[in-house]
């Protein structure tokens, strides 16, 4: 599978080995935990959002290379962006990884205008059991946006939850 080789390429391996923004934001305004119960992956994302802008973001947890690299590159991509722009990127990333939009088809590529370097994850679509690994950070970020600012309640998101508004049928991990 050509895409598989493309998947475990330098940039993903690099982010797996040296994850960016790894840790936790102190005095975070938003926070969510993500779980993939089928493989035991666990992710925590903390954010400092002020005036609808993501001033800081960090993640930590236990996960596979695909999930960790996805989280690392996500934090790089959304840091400094507005919350609305991050939401657009979440939608584009999910559409690409679940195969709803294909970068190789010109009029679909237009709808993936903000993907940039995240295009390295396009190959995940060919690995149904790994799609959840790639999207867990993005689900979790989405849940963090909806978390009560500075509240004690931590948003919980899982790739299995039926009531997860972003839940997509992507096969079993």
């Amino acid at each position, binding site marked *: *599978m050509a895409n*598989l*080789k493309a998947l*475990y390429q330098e940039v993903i*391996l690099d982010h*797996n*080995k040296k994850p960016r923004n790894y840790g936790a934001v102190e005095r975070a305004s938003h926070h969510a935990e993500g779980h993939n119960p*089928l*493989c*035991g*992956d*666990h992710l925590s994302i903390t954010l400092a959002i002020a005036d609808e802008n993501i001033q800081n973001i960090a993640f930590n947890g*236990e*996960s*596979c*290379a*695909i999930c960790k690299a996805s989280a690392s590159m996500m934090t790089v991509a959304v840091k400094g962006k507005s919350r609305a722009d991050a939401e657009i990127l979440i939608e584009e990333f999910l559409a690409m990884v679940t195969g709803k939009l294909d970068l190789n088809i010109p009029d679909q590529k237009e709808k993936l205008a903000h993907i940039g370097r995240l295009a390295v994850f396009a190959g995940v679509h060919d*690995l149904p*059991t*790994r799609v959840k*690994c790639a999207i867990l950070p993005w689900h979790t970020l989405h849940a963090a946006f909806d978390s009560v600012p500075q509240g004690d309640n931590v948003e919980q998101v899982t790739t299995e939850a039926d009531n997860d508004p972003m839940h997509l049928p992507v096969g079993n*991990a």
Partner: protein
Amino acid sequence: MPKINNPSISTFGTPPFNINKIRADFPILNVQVEGKPLVYLDNAASAQMPQQVIDRLVRYQSSQHANIHRAVHYLSELATAEYDEARRKVQRFINAADEREVIFTSGTTEAINLVMHGYGRKFIGTGDEIIISTLEHHSNIVPWQMLAEERGAKIRVVPVNDVGELQLDAYMNLFNERTKFVSLIHVSNALGTINPVKKMIAYAHSHGVPVLVDGAQAVPHMKVDVQDLDCDFYAFSGHKLCGPTGIGILYGKAALLERMQPFKGGGDMILSVTFEKTTYNTIPYKFEAGTPPIAAAIGLGAALDYLSAIGMENIAAHEHALLQYATEQVSQIPGVRIVGTARDKASVLSFVMEHIHPHDVGTLLNQEGIAVRTGHHCAQPVMQRMGIPATSRASFAFYNTRAEVDALVAGIRMVQKVFA
């Protein structure tokens, strides 16, 4: 990658164990994955089916099928006879004293649930205790938790040591006058540990406590004799024995089965029905409501014939040699740690790789045509005890070869290179 079908490197077992002849029985072993020969090392999840069983299923569906125990016509009588014969094949395979002690279920999970409902809900009450072990598959944890919650009963758990062996002293200390049931896994699906269930059953019986053994991972790999074990219940699945999915077995001692309440209500499990009163059928039919998976039961019978012809002793010897070889080879790779190193093990090699998550290992091995299972193996308490979220698991069957172990080792080194 080494060639799989080289007779010079497949010399385990003594005649009549002929690995090449055996491999030729399994059409699926000719499948190519990513342009490479399939190396199927996920047998603990499900074993493959030989042509003999496939042919038996075809013969049943094309010349023998009708509903059983229902009609007097030719096909119904034939199907009933074949179905009943399959039950006797199971009886002989596990050496049950009586064919009425063999109940067809959909699998191990349903067999355990049957005992939970049929025995547990009738005889286990508030404050009573059920003993299980840390090594249990979720299917031998969750039903008992459901029962405990409903009845206000308590689950007690036998601990394991660092190599994955049950601690027998602790097991014996768990017993008290409230202990009402013991349910134990025979061979751990996650680590491969063979538990000393015979000894554990004898101890439970000294306290008058019945024991269920989850034998899903044991029956495919060793000769199991339920009378020798003296277990009260024994559960296993057809598809791990080269049979079809959707069929499994609950063995139970007749005296216990007779005292139990039915699990599912419906046709075939009754003697007479009026709106005032229903009289249940005798065992085993009391527990087989509705039309059973007839073809699957007959297919399982054919699979047991196939395994018996090879000989469970030969199968165990071949797999043991394979596991020993794989253990030696994998433990020599720096950065790889085998999880579960009990003295007594069957057919399972679970491992973790430094800085590399099992899911990445599984995906990259698949690129080489190698099928392993990655994850928590439906045994999260084992993973927690071992301090890891997941493992990669290679599990062997009698049709696997030394060359396939070499392919696994080469695959692991390739994964390390990718992540270097």
